[in-house]
């Protein structure tokens, strides 16, 4: 579904990603781990199409299309979804309005009938219950006055309602207590499907206990220095990122 080849990305002239190769197939869950400053979030933002990043080399193809040539809204229409690390507040726009607008925009794009207020309400109430969000939050402005945890849960709510083909979750687990983490993990696991790919960008291994990935990649200084199965995450937890960096340095020398 997603093929990234030799991707180099700079911010204000400073290189952040230095040659990323990644292949994500439908049905797979990939985890991208790495220390702070490794470029994890940059990768997520570039895939979603945020301004301010210069692609200096390489390609990213999504379902056979040149992803990097698409606008953010085109990527959303094509089924790409980014759960933000720092979700934005949108004063004056309720969650209900925001979600209904987003969902109906996507449905319109796909030639599906738009949902009316009642059908939408039924759908979203059910999803909110699943992620443990109080229904009363529907009339609140998007993320306004929300705690970090509530904002992250709102991202997962959007994930479950918008049902994308490629879901990129940018440090969704940061700032969550154990109960919130379990709910988020449930939400993500419920979205696993043979037609969907999920990329989890995460600093900590915790989430991966609940959302067990098929592949784990370790990012260091803008490169994937090690890839493996889910047990790699547990090794990292035990030995730390320093171990991976030392190992990759040793390999370079050899």
């Amino acid at each position, binding site marked *: 579904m997603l093929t990234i080849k030799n991707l180099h990305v700079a911010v204000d002239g400073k290189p952040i990603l230095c040659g990323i190769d990644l292949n994500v197939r439908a049905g797979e869950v990939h985890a991208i781990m790495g220390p702070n400053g490794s470029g994890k979030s940059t990768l997520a933002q570039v895939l979603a199409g945020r301004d301010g990043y210069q692609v200096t080399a390489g390609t990213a193809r999504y379902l056979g299309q040149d992803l990097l040539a698409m606008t953010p809204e085109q990527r959303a229409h094509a089924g790409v979804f980014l759960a933000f690390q720092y979700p934005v507040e949108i004063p004056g726009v309720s969650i209900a309005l*925001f979600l209904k607008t987003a969902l109906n925009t996507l449905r319109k794009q796909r030639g599906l009938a738009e949902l009316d207020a009642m059908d939408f309400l039924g759908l979203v109430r059910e999803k909110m219950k699943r992620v443990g969000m109080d229904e009363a939050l529907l009339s609140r402005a998007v993320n306004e006055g929300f705690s970090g945890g509530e904002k992250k849960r709102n991202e997962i709510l959007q994930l479950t309602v918008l049902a994308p083909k490629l879901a990129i979750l940018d440090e969704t687990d940061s700032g969550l207590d154990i109960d919130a983490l379990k709910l988020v993990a449930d939400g993500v696991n419920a979205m696993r499907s043979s037609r969907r790919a999920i990329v989890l960008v995460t600093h900590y291994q915790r989430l991966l206990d609940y959302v067990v990935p098929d592949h784990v990649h370790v990012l260091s200084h803008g490169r994937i220095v090690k890839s493996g199965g889910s047990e790699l995450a547990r090794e990292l937890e035990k030995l730390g990122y320093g171990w991976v960096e030392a190992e990759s340095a040793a390999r370079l020398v050899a």
Partner: protein
Amino acid sequence: MNVQQEAWNSTNLGVVPQALAGHDVPWVRQARQSAFARFTAQGLPTRREEEWKYTDVAVFGHRASLAPDYIPPDPPSEAALHAWALSSAGAHLMVFVNGHYDADLSALDGLPAGVRLQSLAELLDDADALLQPFFDARQEHTIFAALNTAFTTDGAVLYLAPGAVLDTPLHLLFIASGHGTAIYPRNIVVAGEGARATVIEHYLGTLEAHSFTNAITQISLANGAAIEHCKLLQEGSAAFHIAGIHAEQAAGSHFVSHSFALGGHLGRNDITANLSGPGCHCTLNGLYLLDGRQHMDHHTRIDHLAPDGVSRQYYRGVMDGESRGVFNGKLIVHAGAAGTDAHQSSGNLLLSRRAEADTKPQLEIYADDVKCTHGATVGQLDEDSLFYLRSRGMDMESARSLLIYGFANDIVARVGAPDLRARIEQLVLDRLPQGDNIKELL
């Protein structure tokens, strides 16, 4: 005397035109003449005066005559009126065309007992003494109020007996359809103890031609009365509008006034309220959506003269093109107004490099034991918010419009009457690119 004053005097011969309402009534004639004398003596404000620093009204002085015109133009068709009507069927509609009441176009049946609504012109001709205090020189907050006293042709006079309740809003519709007309409406609302009503003051222009409107609205609230007032400016693109709205509040009364400026070329509203008795509530809201070279100026002033008053001022402006939005919010808490709870906030959204916002909170506090807060912001659309919306599939224009709608809707949501609120939401959406798109998705 400067050139402008000479020009006025020569065309008006220093006297007020004979055909104005109440010209046979001594107190009316006297009020008009002395008001005109005050106006010619003081002249138009210049930009050197602090209160008029940002708003240039010199264009008024270039007119050959400030007197209202008397050639009645073609009134708008009923179909056109319906298209503009803000309220659904059954509302009380009073229509004025170029400053004159038009009974044929109006619909005033079924007013409940205790509610008396008449044309100002009729009452002045009948020498209604109850109106006299409203034309007193001490009621003039700006020199334009004097000009209005001199030249007012007509307006709505609403008397609410104690306890009278007007459930359906009263829609006062002022239409400018003559080329270059000068229009001077004057509206007076007297609410008896415990009386309640919603009054919409709506200005429409049918042509691109210049119209000059100088409107004064005076509202007097007895103990416990509650008035919701909504002013809507939808004049033509070359219209000039200078207005004053003043509320005099007795104990325990509630006054809410909204101002929606969605049209016109240059506009200025001076909105003032005296909270004269204890326990008054006063809320002033305003929203202006400006583009091109539009200019809108809101100057407010709330005087807390008695204890335990609660006041709020919420003003927001969205400026695009080369437009300019001005807000000056005054709050005066006099000695003896202990227990005052007041808040004022002004928000400004600039959508283009050449748009401008001028905002000045002005608080003077002379009492102890008060709670007064204020805030003013000027900003642009947030890039992160735009990206967030686009990443959910919205195109750039719709995303911008949704954010602007969210910003503006904070003020629209404060309108109490549901039909009116819904219609104003629609008017705001109509002004936004992709507004139809957003409305479909709402």
